[in-house]
Each structure stands twice: as structure tokens, then as C-alpha cells.
């Protein structure tokens, strides 16, 4: 039996039954990831010793019954490197945080720990989650396990690649404009971006605070539902965290979409969409229809404004959020400097990469006096309109279906040369963040190059159960495709 090919829930079950020990699973995982990661480079930091001692600890907690029937107890997990892990490097894949060890855990880490998780390491990402390819990482790009000439997507590219390459059973990523869903699509795995406020952001190093959400990336819908159940719930440390009793997601794992109303925005399957992706997505819609869902196309005319509004708002917040990295308190500080202004200038010039600088400049510009109304304020109005547009759509539909990204995984180096093209790749994902909605991306076949196609299902606010049910129902009809891992 190949332990690392199991899903998280399958492994959890075998651990609870005593068939596999936590240490066995952890060792197997570490062995595989150390071998494969030379090729894919999904990890930034591996917690080898800690994972092994944690495995022993978790095993004894399971043996004494202290972890109850926690489904993820003992299952190794990888964490995106912008989620704080106490006493361990948390770099955001940036030079400017190359030595940063937070003295606290993110709330999601606390919750995973209580559920008996074994953290095996931190995974690569676009620097400060800015990018769609994981190529902007200071520590070098992650490669797509399906084809190493292609990107894994981003910004949670390390997380998605690790799950696809069986270097992790599951991972936590973060999604500001598609950063969980798009790499999930590119790597043929499943990821959920929850409703804004569902998962605590405490300890998630902010890119754009009003859009950021942490979510699971895993091999199937069931794993995602179980993980989300563990990490969601109100947290007093995050003022934007929502009180909600509706966080039993595993009960939505039901193979039944009879009567479910599914809308497909015409703008999501029209111009600019790769034809193979379109075919894959529409085929998936047909499958759901054949299972009793009511599927129809409709106009969601707000799509066009989503990208500029997103880049204005996200960049504005980023320019403020990233100002604290100044070389004074922690992180990278320039070697030679002459006075305070020089520390700031050189530290930030040397510590940040191109894409991060570009977005901070855009952000500072759109917030500057005289331009605020023309850009930032207008973007906020667009955001409100997008939310209204979705609200209206959800009066008629239970879920909205479409592609996750306009293409399958692009080739390494292709997007970086043309940032505008890269930004346009976010067209189907960013409006979900602007409206604060939940969405899932799951594989729906591969293209002729054997690169996975991503299907995106969007739910109404706190409608995670709807998209999980539809995704689970669809998943029952298809084989889980795997990359050829040496």
C-alpha cells in the first residue's frame, strides 16, 4: 500500500483504527517529499524533526483517546508560508522576511493543532501572495507536477503542487483574488475559498485584508469539507470573523443535486476562454444536469469591471499592509546605510521583488490625495455593484458555475513577461473575493496536453454547503486523475 496516495480522510481512518501509525505516515510523507521536492520545489521550509516528535505526541493523544474521533488526527499537513507558525520561519516567500519567526501561531494553526494535525513544513507561494504562478517567490519557482515546464498557478502554488505531487495530504492556502482556486485548477486538486469572515485571518500575513481568506487545498471534496470544518468558526481575535452556527460542512457531502438551480454566466464561457477549458466545464455542467440539477445560462454583466476594481483595492491595501517591513523591527535590513531614510529606502528596495513593488506603487498612487476618488473610491463602488449583481443572481440560482481560469497551466516564464496578461487570468476568480462569496475549484478533466482543467462553483454568502454538495455529486462521476509522478 502506498500511504502517500491516500486522501487525508482515508489516512485519518487508518490511523484511528491503528492500521497505520502517525509516525509511519509522517516518515512516509517526509521521505517522499524530500525526494520529489528536488524536482517540484513546493516547500520553502521542511519541519523534519519537529514533525517526527509531533507525530509521537499525536499518536499518544490518539491512544489515550484525547483527540476523540478527530478525522484529521495524525495526518501530515503543509502550510502556505504566509500563515504564522510559532517559532518557525514564516517568510511569505520574500527576502524581506527571510529570517522572520513569529512568536505566535495563526488561529488556523491552533485549530489544526487541537485537531491533532502534524505540520510537516511551509510551502512556496508568490511573494506576499502577489502573483498567479508562484514565480515571484524569492526562493525560486515551484513547478507543476503534471508538467514541469508549466507553472503550478499561484499564489498558493506550493500548496497545490505539494498536494498534487503527494508531498502533502492536504494544505492550507490563502485566496485574495483566486490564490487557492487557480493553483488548485492548474494542479488538478480541489480547493475552497470560504465566505469572507468564515476562517479567522489572525496570523495570516496580510496582502489585502478585505479580500484575504484562508482555505483548504486537498485531493477531493470530502477532504476539503472536513478541513474547512476544523478551521472555520468565530475568532475573537479577528474583528471581521463572523458568528455562524452553519459550519457543519461534512454533512453536505451528499450525492444529490436534484432540483438544484445552477446558473452559468455567459461572460464566463465566452470570449477569452480556452476552448478545451470551455468544453470541460460545459461537460461538467451536463453531468450535473443529468443528475437532476436545473442548469441555465444568464447575464452577469459585472464581470468586465472586476479586474481593475480588484487590482485597485488589493494594491491599495497592500501598499499600507506592507509598509511595516522597514528593516527596523524584524526581517531583512540592508547592510550599509546612512540614516533612517536610507534604511527604509535600501531595505525595501533590496527586500521586495518586482511584482510586490509594482503593486505597492499602484496602491500608493490610487490612495494619494487627488486620486483617491477617481480610483479607490470608484473601485469600492464597483465592488458594491458586483456584490449586488451576485445577490441578484442568487435570487434565481443556488450556485453559479464556470471555469476557474481561462486556460490550463501556462508555461514557466510566460506570464511574468506580460503582467497585464497575468492579471487577466484572474478574471473568473477575483469577483468572488470582491463579493466575499464562497467558491470551490475542482478538476473536471484534462486538456490535450494532459494538463488539468478547473471547474469553479460559486455559492451565496455562507452557502459552502451548496457548493460542497454539488462538487461532491459531480466528483462521484469521474475518476481522480493523477499526474505521472516518476
Amino acid at each position: 500500500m502506498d500511504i502517500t496516495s491516500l486522501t487525508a480522510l482515508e489516512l485519518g481512518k487508518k490511523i484511528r483504527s491503528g492500521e497505520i501509525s502517525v509516525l509511519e505516515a509522517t516518515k512516509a510523507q517526509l521521505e517522499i517529499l524530500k525526494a520529489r521536492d528536488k524536482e517540484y520545489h513546493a516547500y520553502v521550509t521542511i519541519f523534519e524533526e519537529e514533525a517526527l516528535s509531533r507525530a509521537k505526541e499525536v499518536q499518544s493523544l490518539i491512544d489515550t483517546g484525547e483527540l476523540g474521533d478527530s478525522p484529521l488526527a495524525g495526518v501530515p499537513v503543509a502550510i502556505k508560508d504566509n500563515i504564522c507558525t510559532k517559532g518557525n520561519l514564516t517568510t511569505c516567500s520574500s527576502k524581506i522576511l527571510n529570517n522572520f519567526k513569529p512568536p505566535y501561531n495563526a488561529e488556523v494553526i491552533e485549530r489544526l493543532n487541537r485537531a491533532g494535525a502534524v505540520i510537516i513544513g511551509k510551502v512556496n507561494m508568490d511573494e506576499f501572495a502577489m502573483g498567479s504562478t508562484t514565480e515571484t517567490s524569492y526562493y525560486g519557482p515551484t513547478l507543476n507536477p503534471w508538467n514541469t515546464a508549466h507553472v503550478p498557478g499561484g499564489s498558493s502554488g506550493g500548496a497545490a503542487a505539494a498536494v498534487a505531487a503527494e508531498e502533502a495530504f492536504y494544505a492550507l492556502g490563502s485566496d485574495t483574488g483566486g490564490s487557492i482556486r487557480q493553483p488548485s485548477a492548474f494542479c488538478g486538486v480541489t480547493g475552497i475559498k470560504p465566505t469572507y469572515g468564515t476562517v479567522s485571518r489572525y496570523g495570516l500575513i496580510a496582502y489585502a485584508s478585505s479580500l484575504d481568506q484562508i482555505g483548504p487545498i486537498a485531493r477531493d471534496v470530502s477532504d476539503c469539507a472536513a478541513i474547512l470544518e476544523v478551521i472555520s468558526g468565530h475568532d475573537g481575535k479577528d474583528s471581521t470573523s463572523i458568528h455562524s452556527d452553519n459550519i457543519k460542512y461534512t454533512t453536505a457531502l451528499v450525492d444529490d443535486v436534484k432540483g438544484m438551480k445552477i446558473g452559468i454566466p455567459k461572460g464566463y464561457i465566452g470570449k477569452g476562454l480556452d476552448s478545451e477549458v470551455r468544453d470541460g466545464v460545459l461537460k461538467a455542467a451536463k453531468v450535473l444536469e443529468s443528475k437532476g440539477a436545473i442548469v441555465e445560462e444568464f447575464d452577469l454583466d459585472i464581470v468586465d469591471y472586476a479586474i481593475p476594481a480588484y487590482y485597485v483595492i488589493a494594491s491599495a491595501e497592500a501598499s499600507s499592509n506592507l509598509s511595516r517591513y522597514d528593516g527596523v523591527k524584524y526581517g531583512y535590513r540592508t547592510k550599509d546605510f546612512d540614516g533612517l531614510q536610507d534604511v527604509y529606502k535600501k531595505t525595501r528596495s533590496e527586500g521586495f521583488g518586482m511584482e510586490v513593488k509594482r503593486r505597492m506603487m499602484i496602491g500608493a498612487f490610487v490612495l494619494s490625495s487627488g486620486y483617491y476618488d477617481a480610483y479607490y473610491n470608484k473601485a469600492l463602488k464597483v465592488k458594491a455593484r458586483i456584490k449586488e449583481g451576485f445577490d441578484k443572481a442568487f435570487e434565481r440560482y443556488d450556485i453559479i458555475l464556470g471555469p476557474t481560469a481561462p486556460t490550463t497551466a501556462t508555461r514557466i516564464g510566460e506570464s511574468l513577461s506580460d503582467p497585464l496578461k497575468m492579471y487577466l487570468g484572474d478574471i473568473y476568480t477575483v469577483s468572488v473575493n470582491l463579493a466575499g462569496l464562497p467558491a470551490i475549484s475542482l478538476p473536471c478533466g484534462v486538456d490535450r496536453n494532459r494538463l488539468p482543467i478547473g471547474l469553479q462553483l460559486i455559492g451565496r454568502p455562507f452557502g459552502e454547503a451548496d457548493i460542497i454538495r454539488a462538487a461532491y455529486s459531480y466528483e462521484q462521476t469521474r475518476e481522480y486523475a493523477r499526474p505521472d509522478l516518476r
Partner: protein
Amino acid sequence: MKVYETVIGLEVHVELATKSKIFCSCTTEFGGEPNTHCCPVCTGMPGTLPVLNKKVVEYAIAAGLATGCTITRRCKFDRKNYFYPDLPKAYQVSQLYLPICRNGGIEIEVDGVKKTIGIHEIHMEEDAGKLVHDPWDDCTLVDYNRCGVPLIEIVSEPDMRSSDEVIAYLDKLKLILQYLGVSDCKMQEGSLRVDINLSVRELGAKEYGTRTEMKNMNSFKAIARAIEGERKRQIELLEYGKPVVQETRRWDDNKDSSFAMRSKEDAQDYRYFPEPDLVPIEISDEWLEEIQKKQPELRDEKMLRYEKEYDIPEYDASIITGSKKLADIFEATVALCKKPKEVSNWLMVETMRLLKEFEMDPEEVQFSPKNLAKLIHLIDSNGINRTVAKEVFEKIFGEDIDPEKYVEEHGLKIVNDEGTLRSTIERIIKENPQSVEDYHAGKTKAMGFLVGQTMKEMKGKADPGMINKILLELL
């Protein structure tokens, strides 16, 4: 020479008296070793998030209600972005677009003339840390203890025309805030900081002149001096035909002059935008009512009540209510001893004398009402005489001693034993035949001498009434 008018508006920063900081649970206590009153949240570590201290909102609302402001029922925080080492997030969480209070005013009185000074707005914000220069190592260190201490900034309209009006406004504002309990307003600890916006114009002119902003005054006296200095400086410039430059100036009280810190050209663009980590604050009718109900009696009402309820003169009432501390002591003591006039006298005469002698502020008074009440009771019950009482009060004022114990331990009790007193007086009469003769010859002074001698012999612990009675009898 032209006649000029001074136009002044103030920005007053007040540290709120909450126990914990505005966005975390760290203590707000003043002092403390550097960087011991901070945590990942108030030092802005990556990934941390603010959680608003409700008490801050309540204090801001209380200040707004007491100054006649309209409360913004849905208000928000904004980020003010700038780089400085004492600001660990590189932005200050403040309020620009929707401040919590707006359009209020305070009535002041200068030389018998009443006037209302408008309050433009009151907004909530977090304080920054402090830079400390280490001359030994010639480096600058940062102390983050003050980071996240809650502040309100009270912005007045440019309604003041003289330093007298400014001081009257500040006195009144300070008293309101102290009565509300929202701040201790200690300038020397930085919990009350005043920026002066000042311009001059020819009397009768419609337009305002170019204004400057003055910072770094650490007493009301310094504020008055800074206003006078800046007024003169601007008038001189205009008289010589030079323009006033819009700039921020720093007052140097030792040199009695100011210097320019930065001009409008270097003014920063703070790139304000709504703070996404905090949700808007909704102030419900119920919440507002609750705060309104808890509003304490302010000075003007208190003065009137003292005159009516305790029957003390207006002058006394105004002195006592002129300090929240004195008013508190007054009321608590009266509640214990039921003698308002006696309590008022101790505060008006002895307390004031001692405050002057030790150059103290009434707010620094330390003694407890219980001990003053006990002292008054001791006098009333003939336990001690007034001379001894003053001596005991000094001890109460200085060390808050228990007067009963003190009198007991030091043997200061009035000797009520008539036998002892009688025999002492008999001896005094025997030893001073001349005085007895003088007395009988009608010289009243002699009587006083004999009383004095007896008191001396009794070490001051006799009841003067009783001495008189026995003396008269024996003579």
C-alpha cells in the same frame, strides 16, 4: 500701526483612562520598563489584527455628549499612512471620514464675558511609541509601551482670539474630561497634548491669515507664552511686509521661542483609507442611552447643587468644584460626617495653604475622606482643640494618617480631668501673683496670660473653655 486680531484653533490629544489599550489587552499604565507593555498586536507584528476596546468608544461618546456634539451613529476607522520608527505598522489607526463626534461647543467666560468655542470634531485614534536617544551609544532606541494607548483628538473651531480664551477653554475642557473620568489630563505625562493653530489678521478682515501649527508645549503657562510669542512673530512679519509661511513649528520653552519643523511643501500625503481590519461601529439607541445615563454630574451642576444642598457660599463651591479631586473628597467626607461647612473650611483654608506651600496641584491631593471626617469628629466631640487639629491635619495631608490613632499615640487628647486642670491652675495662680493682681486691677490682658500659661503647662491639650471657667472661679 494696524490693529491685529489673533485667530486660534486647538487640536487637543487626550489619552483615555482605559485600563487596556485600544486594540489589544496590554496595560496603558504610564512608565514601566521600555517595551514591557506591548504584545504582537500593538507592535504591529505581521498577521496580527486589532480588536476594538469598547470602553474607548464609550469614553469618546461621553466626551462628545458632555461637549454638546452630535454622535455619528455609524462611524469608521481609517488608516493614516506614514513611515516613522515609533509607528510599527507604518500607519496609525485613526478616523478621518466619519469621526465619532461632530459639531459641539464649550462655553467659556473671560473677564465676565461669556462665549462659546465650537468643537469641530472628536475622533478616536491610537498613540504611537516613543523614540529615546541614547547619548552614550549615540543611537536611537524605540519604546513601544505607548503604542496603542487610546487617544481622542478634540479639534476646536478657530473661535479663540487670545491666550486668555485659550486657557479658559483648556481649563474647562480638562475639567469636563476629568469629571467624566475619561482622562487624568496630566500634561507632564503626556496624557493631554495641545497643538495650537494660530494666524493673525487685521481687525475687521473677512479672510483668515496664513496659519502656523505650534507643538511641544508642556504646560498651560507654556501655551500662553507660545501664543504670545507666535502672535508677535507673525505681526512682525506682516509689518515688514513679509509673508507668514504655513508650517509646523516647535516651541522651546527654555528659549521662549519657536523654530520651524516642516513647511507645507514637505507636508506628507497620509493616503488615508478605511481600515479594513475593523468593522464599522454601530452605535445603537440603547447603547447611547446607557452611556447618557451613566454621565456623571459635571462642574456647573455640581456647583449649584453644593450651594443649595450643602448651603456653602458660591465662592467655596467654585473653588472646591474647580478640581474633581477636591469635589470628590468634599462629598465623600460630608457623607461621613454630615458637616459640609466644616469640610469646606478644611479644604478652603488648610488644604489650599498646604497645596500652595508644597506647590502641588489639587488633583495630587492624596488624603482619604475617612481621615478628614474622623478629624472633624475629634474636634466636635472635644477630643482635641483647634491648634492640635491643624497639626494633625498636616499629618493627614502629608501621610494620610488615622487622626484617632495619631492623637492617641502622641498624647494630644484634650485633658478633660477637671481635678488635674484645677490643681494646675491653682499652681499657676500661686506662681504669678503679679498677674492675679493685674487682673483684679481690671487688666484683661492678665487673664489671657494666665490662660496661656495654663495651656503651656498642659502641653496644649486642655480645653480653653474649661480653663477659662476654672480660672474665673478661682480668681
